[in-house]
């Protein structure tokens, strides 16, 4: 008579430990790649919150990633705020943007919802180009040297150090994973899934489904923006390409491959896809064709993604 998911919690803990140990095993080049994977999988985890758990397919999540990226990056670039403050501002910025966009976009459903989120995201992308004098537009802005390190509790953390970057990314990843575990495996997550599975029924059980969807949307956007803020500050660069359509699609791909509606799917999907692109682009410039074929295959035979398929066939608790 239990609704808790101890096995999944154990798997999450093991995953984090394995990730931590990997930095002592992997060569520096791969540790850097893993740092990127960790940050991008936070992005995909945010996306998965909305698409995987709540069943709302957004095509505009780059706008939340960019909201975090720009709110954090611009505030440290122009006002010289310290990195932890900039990071916090990035999260607040993404929260505000996702709440407002959510209020508007959630008035639509299904295909209209996809189009509305895409349109908002494109408008955001064009704004970053329109205000090139501030944002740096296509060229972007490189954060100044004094924004490449910060002191915290007496320690100086250097953003150009691979070790510092990896462990910071792992820390944020772990926190987000913990938060998402608490949300998705508890009462609130049950309502997200209820909306995904049968929204009219959920209404007739006494729930305001608009409020549930808005909550999921805001959590999703805020987490995606957290990834954006971290990415910008960690690699010291902000540019409009992060607000582009391709970035939205990548979050979708990572989630689809890993398994929508599984907690660890986005991490797996991001790792598989980035490593694949990395290897393939070394062999051929036409690597996107291979990716395309792979996606078609996955969608035809494994529409639930890697972990989603494993969950349905063998491990029911993997959600």
């Amino acid at each position, binding site marked *: *008579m*239990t*609704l*808790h998911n101890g096995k999944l919690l154990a798997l999450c803990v093991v995953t984090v430990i394995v990730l931590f140990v990997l930095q002592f095993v992997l060569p520096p080049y791969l540790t850097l790649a893993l740092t990127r994977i960790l940050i991008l999988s936070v992005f995909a985890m945010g996306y998965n919150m909305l698409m995987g758990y709540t069943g709302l397919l957004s095509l505009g999540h780059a706008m939340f990633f960019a909201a975090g990226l720009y709110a954090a990056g611009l505030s440290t670039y122009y006002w010289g705020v310290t990195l932890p403050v900039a990071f916090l501002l990035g999260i607040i910025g993404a929260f505000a943007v996702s709440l407002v966009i959510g209020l508007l976009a959630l008035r639509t459903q299904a295909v209209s919802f996809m189009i509305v989120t895409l349109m908002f995201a494109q408008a955001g992308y064009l704004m970053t180009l329109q205000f090139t004098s501030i944002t740096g537009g296509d060229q972007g802005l490189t954060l100044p040297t004094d924004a490449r390190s910060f002191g915290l509790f007496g320690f100086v953390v250097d953003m150009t150090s691979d070790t510092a970057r990896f462990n910071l990314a792992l820390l944020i990843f772990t926190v987000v994973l913990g938060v998402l575990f608490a949300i998705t495996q*508890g*009462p*609130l997550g*049950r*309502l997200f*899934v*209820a909306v995904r*599975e*049968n929204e*009219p*029924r*959920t*209404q*007739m*059980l*006494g*729930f*305001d*489904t608009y*409020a*549930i969807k808005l*909550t999921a949307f805001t959590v999703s956007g805020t987490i995606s923006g957290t990834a954006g803020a971290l990415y910008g500050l960690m690699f010291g660069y902000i540019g409009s390409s992060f607000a582009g359509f391709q970035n939205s699609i990548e979050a979708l791909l990572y989630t689809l491959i890993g398994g929508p509606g599984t907690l660890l799917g986005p991490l797996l999907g991001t790792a598989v896809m980035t490593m694949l692109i990395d290897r393939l682009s070394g062999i051929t410039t036409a690597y996107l064709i291979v990716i395309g074929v792979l996606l078609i295959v996955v969608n035809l035979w494994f529409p639930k993604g890697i972990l989603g398929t494993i969950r349905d066939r063998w491990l029911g608790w993997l959600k």
Partner: protein
Amino acid sequence: MTLLRTKGLSRHFDGLKAVDGVDFALDPGEIRAIIGPNGAGKSTFVSLLSGRIKPSAGQVFFEDRDVTGMPAHKRVRMGIAYTFQITNIYGAMTVLENIAIAAQNRLRPHLFSRKPVSEVQIARAATKAAQEVGLGDLLYETAGTLAYGHQRLLEVAMGLALQPKLLILDEPTQGLSDSEIGNFQEVVRRVAQSATVLLIEHNMDVVMALADRITVLETGQVLAEGSPGDIVSNDAVQAAYLGAPA
């Protein structure tokens, strides 16, 4: 005091008057059946009560409060539970999870509850509701794979877990076998000890066995209302049902 009352309640679909000026009153504690020929407006009428569709005219009062403009989910919060005519469950989830969603609405009504009710309590309430309808052994079965009769019972269990003041059952015995119907009647009787039951039903044996009072609808209007005995001997009802001249 009446539990539920309607005044001139109407719903028109273009030219069709599905529900047409119905004045209706329901006392607390009774089991009321609504019967009527196909297309009489029974399902539309209870949908208006639950708030799933909006009336064209008229008002609905619940515990003397005008709830006409209130969205469905708020009416559920007030104590009006509705079970669907066509089985409407979360097919991919387990029986326990299905009922837990309903139980959660009662135990943890706010999304961000500051005093969160533990998952254990929700699970306990859901298990209890499942046992009350006889699904206690099937808690971890996937709801979509259950036999049809069990899915109907799951619908009722979800209604029960809300602990409603008024439980609206829309053709609950449709498609059930005789033995399942017998069990179902037991369940309804037990529910009626703590809640008012409004039952739309085609099976006259069930209606006669359960209902304290019967309301007959025809072409969107109340044709007759009374005890089962009155209704059986009512000439107008016989005419409507059997097509015999009154």
